[in-house]
């Protein structure tokens, strides 16, 4: 909401400085968003007189002027304006002046070989209007003002204040409401609102409302025999300060009353109407071309104002193009109605149509201001356009019943945190228009639809007092030592994240939404936005990998040689959201080096290593994990796997990404990836600090190696598990350390060598013990078809 200082002062009697006023606005919740003085850009321009005008020696369309700006020898100015002539008074910018409308700074220049100093300016060059047909021509009596600043001469030194109005404060969507709020702070006094008596004659127009829900009240009157034209300078200046373009007096008056009092109005050209006006529900499919020249298709929930020919106004939102007032209009009907806020909001949302009127009606205009509103508008029409006004027809009844709130001044301290004397509270509320009786029954003014409970009254008091004066009060602190606040899941996620980073993975955050194309190889998305910002950000990701692959590809394009990315975030599946860690490894695993030679690439085991380390950090029982396949179609079918606790509980999937996936996303070369499903990891609930009793065994651990020939397709982990199971007590570790395939072990076979660690606890192992154990190991291997290698 923008307005000039002088406009504010038309309602507020104050000696306060501009800074005091703007600080106060912010303090009371009308946040200052901008402050501009149009005079600032025009400081250097002066009222100047053309004392000589003659032809330019080298150009037909240019003139050579001598200009007196009162401060210098007359300037020689080359001027192309057709209206420039001797003795005219205009606006001069001397050399060095910045021309705001043309965005350049004047320098002495030669124009067609003649020197020119400074410029006589057009309205457009000063951003004072659109006119660029000629230079500004001031009245002849301005000659006495030659040398004075143009901004002073034209009274442009009027700062424009821009404040943000929160959606609850419709009453401040008019300058008078802002003045009232300011007055309550004691910074000034609200001037009384005087509405001149209007001589009305003749019966009011035929207006009625058939839609008491959408339009409970419809007031109207006519003014006949007027002549429309430009509105006066004072009104134009105020409208311009509010950012409104003056159009003609009738349109300007409706805009002005809306901005001055927050009261939207509509003016119809009576000549374009047929029959009376009625507020009614639209019929389904009814069409209307609004003032913005767009056609809207209405439905039966929307309120329109119509005559015998059809709808002419989307009630309270925007008038129709056909029946608006024009320069030639002589008879008008002024509409001052009350539209239901909820109904306006719904209609506006459906039509995706916003307007100044909608903003005010949907926030709730003052239902008790219809008579004043129509009188103020009528008086202005009569004053500016002449004509004669009819009586007012009042159809329907606006909802003016007033709300009362029981208040206890102590509540200011118990909720607002500050003690304010009851008398002071009373005077603040009264200044804002509330009525307070002896028992603190508070009557809410009709323009404060937002005030419903005592909490709202506390807010009114403390915002006027100033929130800065609320003393800061420590929260009550529980006795004793602070207790841990993180849940086991949060701790697991935190540890997993830091473990990943400690292993040299870089955490990223990628969009939760991806494209359909990216989602497809991952099973597609269940959640597709109805109103995405773009096709690329449309589907809630079913996997973290598409975003990570895309990020990897961007890094590869930037020349990164080794890419190690991870993300902790959610996957969005049909029924719920799953916390997940995704990781992608691409490019070089190990860079070429003087020690190790050429660079190496990542393989599926690198992904598995990250998975195991992160799972372990997250508290998963990694010694109980089982290797399965079926990692998903986005992985290489032979170089991927899953780690599970039981056949159905998948904790992680990993592997080499399927070449078609990486290729589709533009990632060159092999990349490996993994996803760790955090919510599948069993949560360690019990927090027992005590560990099981343990003393390191006094006896030495020994190791034994076993090499087996097995079928080539036997999973190695099966053999290791079988070997380890030979004596669960004695064997504390089993590690596969050699894999060999070749002619010497036979076609379709491979050799696997396992080192087992034996930890005796009671007595040193005898040769016999070792023999027994060895036989068991071999027997367990034999169950899998493994033969001890000779």
């Amino acid at each position, binding site marked *: 909401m923008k307005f000039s200082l002088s406009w504010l002062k038309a309602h507020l009697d104050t000696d306060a400085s501009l800074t005091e006023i703007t600080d106060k606005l*912010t303090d009371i*919740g009308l*946040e200052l968003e901008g402050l501009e003085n149009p005079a600032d850009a025009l400081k250097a321009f002066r009222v100047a007189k053309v004392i000589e005008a003659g032809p330019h020696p080298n150009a037909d369309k240019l003139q050579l002027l001598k200009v007196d700006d009162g401060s210098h020898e007359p300037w020689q100015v080359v001027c192309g304006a057709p209206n420039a002539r001797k003795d005219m008074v205009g606006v001069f910018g001397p050399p060095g002046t910045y021309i705001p409308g043309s965005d350049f700074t004047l320098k002495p220049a030669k124009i067609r070989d003649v020197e020119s100093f400074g410029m006589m300016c057009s309205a457009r060059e000063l951003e004072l209007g659109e006119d660029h047909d000629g230079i500004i021509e001031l009245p002849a009596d301005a000659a006495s003002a030659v040398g004075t600043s143009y901004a002073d001469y034209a009274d442009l030194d009027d700062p424009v204040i821009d404040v943000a109005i929160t*959606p*609850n404060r419709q009453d401040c969507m008019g300058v008078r409401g802002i003045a009232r709020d300011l007055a309550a702070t004691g910074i000034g006094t609200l001037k009384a609102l005087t509405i001149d008596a209007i001589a009305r004659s003749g019966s009011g127009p035929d207006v009625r409302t058939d839609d008491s829900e959408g339009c409970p009240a419809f007031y109207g009157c006519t003014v006949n025999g007027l002549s429309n034209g430009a509105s006066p300078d004072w009104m134009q200046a105020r409208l311009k300060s509010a950012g409104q373009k003056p159009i003609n007096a009738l349109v300007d008056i409706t805009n002005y009353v809306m901005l001055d009092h927050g009261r939207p109005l509509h003016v119809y050209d009576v000549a374009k109407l047929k029959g009376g006006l009625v507020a009614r529900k639209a019929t389904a499919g009814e069409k209307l071309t609004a003032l913005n020249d767009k056609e809207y298709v209405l439905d039966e929930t929307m309120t329109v104002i119509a005559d015998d020919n059809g709808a002419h106004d989307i009630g309270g939102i925007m008038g129709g193009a056909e029946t608006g007032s024009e320069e030639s209009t002589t008879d008008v009907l002024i509409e001052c109605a009350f539209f239901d*806020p909820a109904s306006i909001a*719904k209609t506006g*949302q459906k039509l995706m149509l916003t307007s100044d009127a909608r903003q005010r009606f*949907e926030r709730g205009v003052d239902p008790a201001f219809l008579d004043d509103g129509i009188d103020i508008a009528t008086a202005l029409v009569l004053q500016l356009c002449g004509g004669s006004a009819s009586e007012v027809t009042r159809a329907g009844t606006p909802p003016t019943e007033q709300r009362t709130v029981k208040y206890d001044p102590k509540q200011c301290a*118990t*909720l*607002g*945190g500050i003690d304010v004397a009851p008398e002071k509270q009373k005077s603040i509320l009264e200044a804002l228009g509330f009525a307070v009786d002896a028992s603190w029954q508070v009557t809410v003014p009709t323009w404060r639809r*937002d005030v419903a*409970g005592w*909490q709202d009254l*506390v*807010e009114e008091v403390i*915002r006027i007092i100033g*929130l800065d004066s*609320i003393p*800061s*009060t*420590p*929260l*009550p602190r*529980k006795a004793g030592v*602070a207790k841990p*606040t993180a849940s086991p899941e*949060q701790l697991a996620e935190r540890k997993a*994240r830091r473990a*990943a*980073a400690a292993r*040299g*993975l*870089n*955490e*990223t*955050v*990628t*969009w*939760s939404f991806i494209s359909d194309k990216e989602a497809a190889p991952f099973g597609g998305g269940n*959640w*597709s936005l*109805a*109103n995405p*910002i773009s096709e690329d950000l449309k589907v809630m990701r079913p996997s973290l990998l598409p975003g990570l692959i895309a990020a*990897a590809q*961007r*890094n590869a394009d930037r020349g*990164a040689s*080794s890419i190690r990315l991870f993300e*902790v975030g*959610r996957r*969005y599946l049909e029924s*719920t*959201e799953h916390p997940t860690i995704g990781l992608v490894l691409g490019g070089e695993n190990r860079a070429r080096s*003087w*020690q*190790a030679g050429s660079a190496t690439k990542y393989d599926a085991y690198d992904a598995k290593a990250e998975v195991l380390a992160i799972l372990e950090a997250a508290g998963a029982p990694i010694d109980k994990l089982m290797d399965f396949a079926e990692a998903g179609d986005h992985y290489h079918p032979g170089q991927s796997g899953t780690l599970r606790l039981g056949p159905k509980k998948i904790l992680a999937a990993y592997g080499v990404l399927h070449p078609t996936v990486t290729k589709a996303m533009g990632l060159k070369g092999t990349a490996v990836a993994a996803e760790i499903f955090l919510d599948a990891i069993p949560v360690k609930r019990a927090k027992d600090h005590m560990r099981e009793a343990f003393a390191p065994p006094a006896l030495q651990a020994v190791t034994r190696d076993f090499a087996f020939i097995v079928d080539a397709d036997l999973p190695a982990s099966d053999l290791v598990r079988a070997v380890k199971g030979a004596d669960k007590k004695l064997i504390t570790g089993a590690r596969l350390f050699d894999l060999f395939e070749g002619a010497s072990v036979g076609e379709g076979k491979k050799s696997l060598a396992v080192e087992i660690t034996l930890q005796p606890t009671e007595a040193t192992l005898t040769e016999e013990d070792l023999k027994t154990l060895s036989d068991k190991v071999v027997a367990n291997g034999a169950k899998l078809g493994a033969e001890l290698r000779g």
Partner: protein
Amino acid sequence: MSDSEAIKEKYLGQVEAAADGDALEAIRVAALGKKGEISALLKTLGKMTPEERQSEGPKINGARQTVADAIAARKDSIETEALNAQLATEKLDMTLPPPSGPKGSIHPVSQVMDELAEIFADLGFSVATGPEIEDDWHNFTALNIPETHPARAMHDTFYFPQTDEGGMPKLLRTHTSPVQIRTMMDVAKQTDGAGEPIYIIAPGRTYRSDSDATHTPMFHQVEGLVIDKGIHMGHLKWTLETFVRAFFERDDITLRLRPSYFPFTEPSAEVDLGFTVEKGRRIIGGDPRSENGGWMEILGSGMVHPNVIRNCGLDPDVWQGFAFGCGIDRLAMLKYGMDDLRAFFDGDLRWTEHYGFDALDVPTLSGGVGA
């Protein structure tokens, strides 16, 4: 000079001159071996008279001992020399780079979330979470934003074709405030409506259909909620002061509370932090009224609206409290000096390397929450 003396001197000379272990061994055999010269002398002792033995015995034994010691000493020194010679051939260029592992990092958003959890844990707040795909009721209606409320239009909501039980389209949460609702409802349910104190923060992803230089359609917010008895705006002010001073690790941060409007709080306040410009960058802290100072809007806050408390099944005449919310990405930018929000979501490894955090930079109260 007796024989023994002369023999001793002879061998000592040879030992001194021995060049390697073999030569030394030959000397040992010649002197001390079974048939060695000194061994032979020792054998002569038995044939001597007691007087002779008394005088010759110590000399001969002394010679044997001296020669044996000399051999041992020489052996040591030959071995040392040989080892030194070998080590001298094993010299490496120690300026060569050793093998190095990859360096990982934590994203600033995660780091800041951990910092927030730490700061608020000290004040007794725990961390709560909720779904990002929300329903209309939790995101709007329960927060006192009915369907026709103008504030809805300001939320630039992303919608899904799927609807909830009430037939309203499901949506992406536009703020973390639905976590307030879910937390209060859980408490109401667990306590049969009696209620109990609630102190939570809720960090997480939020979404608005907005994209320009300073807005991304996905961003991070943190919500704070306190519900207790006798909580008022003074507590809100203290909590926010304590939080920002702990977070930015500066005591000279001034807060300005401005009355504002949020449908879910009453009274409502926006919170500005004082900043000063240092070396061309805005730094939170210092005198906002000084020449190079100013105010920056950071937080929205207020006392939880009684309708919201009631909507969650608690009695607003018993329970009262405050809520606040602010952007985590913004907090990170202000604290660590990033100037481009979009870079947060790009995954550029160069950016990550520069702005990321070491895995071991775990925020702690004792170590400081700023790494």
